[in-house]
């Protein structure tokens, strides 16, 4: 298992998955997935579409029957239970609010199923709506709400049944950018306040880093890395994790002493405790441009392409053995296409050596 940690201590983890596998015909949607998540933590399942993250979430929720493996919630194996008997609640992509019921009735739905007394239901629904700041909307129909409001109803509908595990499938993908960031923060605060073990599916690394205690990076049905967000960013465990999280310079070469030599490009200083490996990973932001003759220059090339990305500009530097991507601050005197420049490493600790 790659990057497996022990976050749960001795007591049962909030969620523990082991050996989870699901095939659709010959195609393996998820293979041998395993991790432990401590109670109250938020995990995001991060990966491109088709990587198996949604299948994994649906397996936890009970909508996909796994071929093999176990799912334990606070020590209890829930793998054989139908969805309605699992201690999980899901915020579906698109929210899946019941269109023929009011906001209050949507939120009360799960409680009615538990045959909770009417008076108690009313109180809990009121509290849940207050928690998502929708008290005024209780009698509206879902179609009368904005996307953000609908999402909060979906959240309230889950929280009100007090699940052990909260599952969210791409919860913010239907929202526009500003609202998305606002809702991400809101969800994170609410989740921390309630201390509920949560799993979120996303394809957006930014979202994963903002929300998470833990990130599980997946590709092609496999779990590549289970780590803290900083660990994923700073020390990608595989070439896939590196490139998926924006490490665009992946250079083949070999270490020679304290330097990593990339044929046709140059020599890069390595951090002190670099592991052995034949691949050097450098984020564009870990590089800077210098004069071609600067002693710090690790490589020399020609500016081929400049793109504005906001506060920074992304430059592509053509070297004889390949291109390097370098992010530079935008200020007067920025490089122009065709100029000869040197490329230096901003900070040796930001260089990552990968096995392959």
């Amino acid at each position, binding site marked *: 298992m790659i990057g497996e940690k022990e976050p749960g201590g001795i007591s049962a983890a909030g969620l523990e998955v082991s050996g989870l596998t699901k095939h659709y015909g010959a195609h393996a949607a998820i293979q041998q997935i395993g991790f432990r998540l401590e109670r109250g933590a938020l995990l995001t399942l991060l990966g491109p579409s088709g990587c198996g993250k949604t299948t994994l979430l649906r397996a936890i*929720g*009970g*909508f996909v029957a796994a071929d093999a493996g176990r799912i334990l919630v606070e020590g209890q194996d829930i793998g054989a239970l*139908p*969805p*309605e*008997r699992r201690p*999980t*609640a*899901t915020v*579906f*992509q*698109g*929210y*899946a*609010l*019941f*269109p*023929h019921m009011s906001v209050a009735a949507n939120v009360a*739905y*799960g409680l009615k*199923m*538990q045959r909770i007394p009417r008076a108690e239901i009313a109180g809990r629904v009121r509290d849940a709506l207050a928690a998502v700041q929708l008290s005024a909307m209780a009698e509206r129909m*879902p*179609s009368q709400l904005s996307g953000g409001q609908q999402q909060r109803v979906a959240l309230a*509908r*889950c929280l009100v*049944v007090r699940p052990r595990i909260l599952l969210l499938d791409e919860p913010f993908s239907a929202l526009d950018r500003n609202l998305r960031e606002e809702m991400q923060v809101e969800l994170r605060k609410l989740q921390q306040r309630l201390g509920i073990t949560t799993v979120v599916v996303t394809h957006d690394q930014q979202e994963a880093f903002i929300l998470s205690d833990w990130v599980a990076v997946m590709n092609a049905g496999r779990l590549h890395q289970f780590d803290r967000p900083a660990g994923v960013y700073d020390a990608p465990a595989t070439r896939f994790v590196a490139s998926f999280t924006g490490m665009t310079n992946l250079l083949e070469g070999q270490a020679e002493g304290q330097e990593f030599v990339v044929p046709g490009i140059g020599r890069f200083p390595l951090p002190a405790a670099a592991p052995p490996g034949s691949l050097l990973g450098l984020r564009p932001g870990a590089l800077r441009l210098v004069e071609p003759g600067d002693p710090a220059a690790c490589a020399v090339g020609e500016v081929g392409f400049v793109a504005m990305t906001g506060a920074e500009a992304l430059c592509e530097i053509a070297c004889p053995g390949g291109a390097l991507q370098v992010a530079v601050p935008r200020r007067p005197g920025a490089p122009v296409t065709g100029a000869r420049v040197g490329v230096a490493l901003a900070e040796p600790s930001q260089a990552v050596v990968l096995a392959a």
Partner: protein
Amino acid sequence: MKRNLVALPAMVVLAVLAGAYGSFFATGLLRQVPGTASVAGPLSLDNYLRFLAGGGQVPVFLDTFGFAVLLTLITALIGYPLAYFIARTESRFLRVFFLAVLVATFLSGSVTRAYGWMVILGNRGLLNSLLLNAGLIEQPFRILYRQLGVGIALVHFLLPFFVLTVVGGIRNVPRALEEASRDLGCGPARTFMRVTLPLSLPAVAEGMALSLALALSAFLFPLMLGGGRVRLVANYIYDQIFVAFDIPFAAVVSAGFLVCSCAALLVMAGLQRLLLRRFATGGLT
């Protein structure tokens, strides 16, 4: 302006239809020349008054509406589970197979089908032979030449119309809603009752309105399978024209029946609108 041009063909068709109806209904103002098949003036409302006074058609109208409503309900009861199965089965093969069977019933002509029912439902037919051989009955059970046989043939005729309408309605209920219900602690049966069924009710109402309209206008199956005992409004009108040759009164009965049928369908349409407002799936995925 462009829109008007596009609507033109539809307007022409409507105008021709309305004109045809209009001339037929105007015939109701004339009267039959006794002993002949001819109609003549002067214009009078006598036939309309005779109709309103209950010119023999009232029991036929009541029978027809009662029978049509009964058939519609039976069709819905049989058709809904079938539609649900087709809409929700995981097996593509089964879905295509059932749809193909339903569509195939559309393709067989009514006369062919009526003869088919005679072979199946007769006292010496397949069904009775089966039941006799299985020892379930000792005497052939009379199905053909009475209302039961006509009803079976008509339900079979109505089913594809109902099912194909409702399959769409059920498929439009997002799976995610059923999953959300399960997720919130509701078992499959209660999920069906609380989510799937209510949200497919507008389609059910539409399918029932279609079935009702078709059942009300049934003619051939009562004639061929009813043994002379099942006489619906269409058969009554047919008799007025082709036996009594009283075309003016037939026109009046037709007009009256059209009004009654439209009223019934308007009620169904109103019900559907009500259900749609209450159980709309639109706007949400």
